[in-house]
C-alpha cells in the first residue's frame, strides 16, 4: 500500500500515543528529523521510550523532550556530550532510565528487529561492563555476547526525497540510521524535502524501498 502523505509534521505524528517506543534517526544534526521531533513535542505524547544515537543536544529537538520529562527511557550509545545538559540533569535527578549500547550493537539490534532476527551473538562488548548479565558464548575460540532486537512502534526519519510509493533516497552521511530504523518500526514516519511522482526516482538508487514506509511529509529543503 502506498504511504499516507501527511499535510504537516503535526499530522504525520498524530498517531503517536503515550508509552510508545520511538526510533529517532540522525547522527548529530545530519539526518535528524527536527520538524518531526518538534511536532512530537507539540502533540503531547509522554512516557516515551526513545532510541537515538545520542541523548539530545543543546536546547532543541530531543533535548527538549527530555527537559519536559516526556522520555521515560532512552536507548543510546553516546548520551554525554558538551551540550547534553538536559539529559545530564534528568539522569542525575533519576528521571530518565538509560540503556547504554555500543553504537554498532545499537545499529545491529535495530537491523535485527527489521529483519525478523530474534537475537545475535556479537563480539562487541564481550568482557565489558555492558555485557554484564547477558548470555555469552565462545565460538571458535572467540567470545560473543547475545544481543536482542529493538522493535519499535514508530520511527521518525529524515530523507532527501520520497516518491509516492514511499521509496526513499538520502543525502551523504545523513543516511546514518534512517534505512534500518524504517524497517524496525510498526510505522515509519519520514520527513523529506520533496515528494515526487512514482517513476521519478531511479529504482537502482532507491535506498529504502517503500514497503517499509507508512507516512511521508514534504517539508521543503533548507538549501
Amino acid at each position, binding site marked *: 500500500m502506498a504511504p499516507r502523505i501527511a499535510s504537516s509534521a503535526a499530522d504525520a505524528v498524530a498517531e503517536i500515543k503515550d508509552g510508545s517506543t520511538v526510533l529517532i534517526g540522525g*547522527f*548529530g*544534526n*545530519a*539526518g535528524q528529523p527536527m520538524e518531526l521531533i518538534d511536532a512530537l513535542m507539540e502533540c503531547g505524547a509522554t512516557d516515551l521510550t526513545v532510541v537515538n544515537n545520542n541523548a539530545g543536544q543543546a536546547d532543541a529537538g530531543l533535548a527538549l523532550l527530555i527537559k519536559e520529562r516526556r522520555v521515560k527511557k532512552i536507548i543510546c*550509545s*553516546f*548520551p*554525554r*556530550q558538551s551540550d547534553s545538559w538536559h*539529559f*545530564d540533569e534528568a*539522569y*542525575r535527578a533519576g528521571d530518565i532510565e*538509560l540503556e*547504554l*549500547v*555500543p*553504537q*554498532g*550493537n*545499537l*545499529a*545491529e539490534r*535495530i*537491523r535485527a528487529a527489521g529483519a525478523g532476527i530474534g537475537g545475535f551473538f*556479537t*563480539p*562487541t*562488548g*564481550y*568482557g*565489558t*561492563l*555492558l555485557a554484564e548479565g547477558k548470555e555469552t558464548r565462545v565460538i571458535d575460540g572467540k*567470545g560473543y555476547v547475545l544481543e536482542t532486537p529493538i522493535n519499535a512502534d514508530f520511527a521518525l526519519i529524515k530523507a532527501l526525497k520520497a516518491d509516492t510509493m514511499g521509496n526513499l533516497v*538520502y*543525502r*551523504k*552521511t*545523513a*543516511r*546514518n*540510521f*534512517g*534505512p*534500518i530504523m524504517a524497517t524496525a518500526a510498526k510505522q515509519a514516519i519520514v520527513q523529506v524535502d520533496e515528494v515526487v511522482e512514482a517513476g521519478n526516482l531511479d529504482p537502482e538508487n532507491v*535506498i529504502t524501498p517503500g514497503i517499509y514506509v507508512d507516512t511521508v511529509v514534504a517539508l521543503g529543503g533548507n538549501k
Partner: protein
Amino acid sequence: MSNYSSTQEKLSRDEMAQKVAADIPSGAFVNLGIGQPTNVSNFLTSEQGVTLHTENGMLGMGPVATGEDIDEDLINAGKIPVTELPGASFFHHADSFAMMRGGHLDVCVLGAFQVSEAGDLANWHTGAEGAIPAVGGAMDLAIGAKQTWVMMSLFTKSGESKLVEALSYPVTGLGCVSRIYTEVAIFELRDSKVFVRSAHGISFEELQSKVPVELTKA
C-alpha cells in the same frame, strides 16, 4: 637481528602521528579515532592510497571542510564537517559497523586511558562515581579492525604508567591492541610479549624501571 632504535628527544604529537602514518600499509582501509588519531590523516601521503572510514557511514573521507565546502549532511564521527574524495561511498549505520566488526578494515587507531600487556584496552569510561557513561563506537572499533593501534601519552599526570599488567579502568575490548605509540616509546604486543621498537628521550633501562611489565628490545 635487533630492530630496536632510539633518539635523544621525545616525540612531539605531530611526530607520533607521522610515525603512525608511515606504518600504515599502502592501500589500507583505516579508521582514525577522535582526538590524537585524527591528526594521523595530516601525514598520510597520496602515494599511500589509504582510504579513510568514518563509522557514521562513509568510505573515502577527505580533509575537514572549510568555507563553502561545509555541508551539514557530510560530517565525520566527531560531527565535524568533512569533504568526500573521488571514489567515496555512503552506507547506513548497520553496514558501517558490519564492515568494521567483519574485519574488513585493516587498521584502527584509537586513544586510550590504559593498555594491558595482553593488549586489553580501556578508553571509554573512567569508572569514576557519578560519571555519566557514554560508549559510542569505542567497543566496536576496538575489536573490529584487523589491527588496533593506540596513541597515548605513556604516563599519567602523576607519572603512573598507562601500560599496565592488568587494567584498573573498565574494559573496552580484550586482547585487541597490537601496537602502542607514545611520546617516549613505540611498543609492539605480540607472542605474549611487549617489545620496544624504539625509545625516545629515555634509555631502555629507565623505561623498564618506569613501566610495570616486562619489556623486550625488538
